[in-house]
């Protein structure tokens, strides 16, 4: 077998942190007004943003950690250095990116993918973007793809002020407030009316510093009748201390516009991934989420679609693979708030080696949404009996004229199917990996080919420990 990636054994010590210091969750020490002000002045924030950060900090200190999801006791804010800035400035040429950082991204295949199949790339290393570039012909269409911080001071400053954390207000939950206070880096995309960006844009987030946090903010506005496919990739090397990712993604999909937002998340298994993603869709618009969750120690991830205009649509396709030491709580939220809106949810989750995966969802249909339709389908696969798989879907329907369907299924790999494949000469492990990859094909067939291959490799890696 060829090994593509060397995978370090999961180090037990991360889990042991939990037991050492149960009550050490003290925010004051980790995050102070001073730190927030310092971030703000280093960023050269406009005044409103400085105030916004401080306000968010206040909210953060008032809010409680969630009492319903996976434990985040192991996340000790004292140990999180909230802001780590690499020693470089953002560049539009890979040759100007420091050698070590460039090498990292090269190993991840980012510059190559940019040459071959992307319309633009942003690369963030810890708290800062180190690279941002967009193809000329795309820029010529009026498409803006830049880092959010410079956009905050440039031509689009007003647009950002109008949208920034309006969809995900800091009051949403504790980690949204944290994000509001310390956010750093991230991308801004604006696609003008009627422009269709034929090839995807990609942002890649790499968290390199041990014990660090990443708080990037992605703001995408797809104007009337426009189209965009945005790909987000994340990874981090493995450390023995907890890392925190509390990013925020706000997507505004205009009238009759369409945005596809794909993520393959492969954070290392010491990551607390407390990310918030939300899209607001206007009349006739479509948001498509494609979401693969493979990494992280603990995840809270529920991309939300607010269908705010007549005929707006959302599709969510997701896969979660929880292996040893992982507690991945993922799913989606949909609010139908206009007539004739449609939502489709199709997810798969896999639990193995003591991993816990939870599918959590909510579908809310308000009084404003007659003739709406929603179909949720979630399937879970248990690969052994030390693992756990829960399905927690909620529905709140407040109009008579709705058509709501839901189905959930949980089970195992059938012995007969394994025998069938083995009888054709395929070894047991491969047979199981094949069946699991097949199980995950709802997502892989929605991804561009090279990402689908990458995802299948991740599955194989989890199943067999090598890449075929």
């Amino acid at each position: 077998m060829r090994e593509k990636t060397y995978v370090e054994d999961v180090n037990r010590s991360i889990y042991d942190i939990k037991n050492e210091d149960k009550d050490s969750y003290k925010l004051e020490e980790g995050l102070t007004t001073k730190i927030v002000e310092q971030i703000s002045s280093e960023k050269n924030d406009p005044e409103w943003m400085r105030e916004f950060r401080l306000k968010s900090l206040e909210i953060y200190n008032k809010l409680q950690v969630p009492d319903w999801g996976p434990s985040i006791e192991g996340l000790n804010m004292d140990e999180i250095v909230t802001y780590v800035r690499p020693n470089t400035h953002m560049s539009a040429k890979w040759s100007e990116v420091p050698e070590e950082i460039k090498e990292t991204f090269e190993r991840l295949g980012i510059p190559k993918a940019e040459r071959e199949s992307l319309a633009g790339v942003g690369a963030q290393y810890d708290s800062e973007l180190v690279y941002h570039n967009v193809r000329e012909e795309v820029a010529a269409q009026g498409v803006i793809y830049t880092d959010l911080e410079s956009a905050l001071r440039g031509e689009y400053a007003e647009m950002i002020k109008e949208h920034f954390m309006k969809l995900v207000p800091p009051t949403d939950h504790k980690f949204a407030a944290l994000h509001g206070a310390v956010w750093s880096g991230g991308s801004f995309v604006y696609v003008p009316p009627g422009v269709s960006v034929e090839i995807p844009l990609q942002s890649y987030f790499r968290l390199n510093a041990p014990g660090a946090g990443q708080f990037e903010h992605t703001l995408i506005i797809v104007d009337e009748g426009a189209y965009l496919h945005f790909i987000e990739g994340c990874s981090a090397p493995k450390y023995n201390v907890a890392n925190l990712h509390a990013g925020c993604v706000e997507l505004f999909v205009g009238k009759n516009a369409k945005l596809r937002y794909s993520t393959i998340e492969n954070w290392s298994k010491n990551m607390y991934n407390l990310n918030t993603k939300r899209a607001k869709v206007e009349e006739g618009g479509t948001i498509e989420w494609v979401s693969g969750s493979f990494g992280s120690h603990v995840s809270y991830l529920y991309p939300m679609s607010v269908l705010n205009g007549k005929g707006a649509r959302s599709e969510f396709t997701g896969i979660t693979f929880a292996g040893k030491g992982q507690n991945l709580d993922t799913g989606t939220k949909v609010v139908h708030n206009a007539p004739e809106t449609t939502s489709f949810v199709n997810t798969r989750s896999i639990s193995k080696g003591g991993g816990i995966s939870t599918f959590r969802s909510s579908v809310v249909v308000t009084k404003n949404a007659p003739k709406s339709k929603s179909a949720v389908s979630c399937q879970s696969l248990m690969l052994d009996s030390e693992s756990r798989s829960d399905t927690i879907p909620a529905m709140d329907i407040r109009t008579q004229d709705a058509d709501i369907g839901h189905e959930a299924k949980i089970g195992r790999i059938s012995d007969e199917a394994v025998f069938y494949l083995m009888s054709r000469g395929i070894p047991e492990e491969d047979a199981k990996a094949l069946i699991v990859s097949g199980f995950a094909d709802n997502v892989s067939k929605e991804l561009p080919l090279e990402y689908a291959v990458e995802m299948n490799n991740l599955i194989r890696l989890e199943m067999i420990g090598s890449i075929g």
Partner: protein
Amino acid sequence: MQEKLLQINNLSVSVEDKKILHGIDLEVNMGETHVIMGPNGAGKSTLGNALMGNPKYIVDGGDIIFDGESIVSLSADKRAAKGIYMSFQNPLEVPGVSLGNFIRSAMEHRTGKRIKLWDFKREMKQAMDILQMDESYAERDLNVGFSGGEKKKAEILQLLMLKPTLAILDETDSGLDVDAVRTVSKGVEEFRKDKKRSLIIITHSTRILESLNVDYTHIIVDGKIVETGDASLIEEINARGFEKYEQPDRREQ
């Protein structure tokens, strides 16, 4: 390959603690075609599954020698690698895995070599033509949404592509209409063109046998081979059924 391809010695098999086969002896030489007949529940499919190594079927005693080596302790994939193939009575549906990719991956495991996409496609097309299968089936998920007849054709397609030395066809003709039986038979004839290949056909009807040269016929009743003969035995069963072989107390039930 040894002339004496398969040798089953005093084989006893149980399923979920229920004894099904009681001391089966059978020899299959290279190039021979054997037919196994018997009433429902006699243990015909159990024999096939035990030969292929289905973990649900427990070998309580006896031995299976294939190509000079005991295979009782080998898993199904190892047996497949040695050249045994079984066409399933009820082929399993495997969502997300296309028929084409599956066959290619099985062939690569069988031969231990990468197969060039172009070569594969050409060979696949030839085999599919014989079976009158539309090429689009290669792109469809393995057996998912296939009709009974399509599933059986897909089984024979795999047989032609994987080229085993011993093929066990478990009720391949059951539930098929006349045309489908003819197509499947054509596939089996194609397989038999190589005179070194052997066949065990498990069936309770005789339609699939019409176009094949049968060397031996075995009758299994209550987990035992009660009679062995040549092809003429098939006609006798056709005319009179299994009644003569069944124990009187069983018949009354």
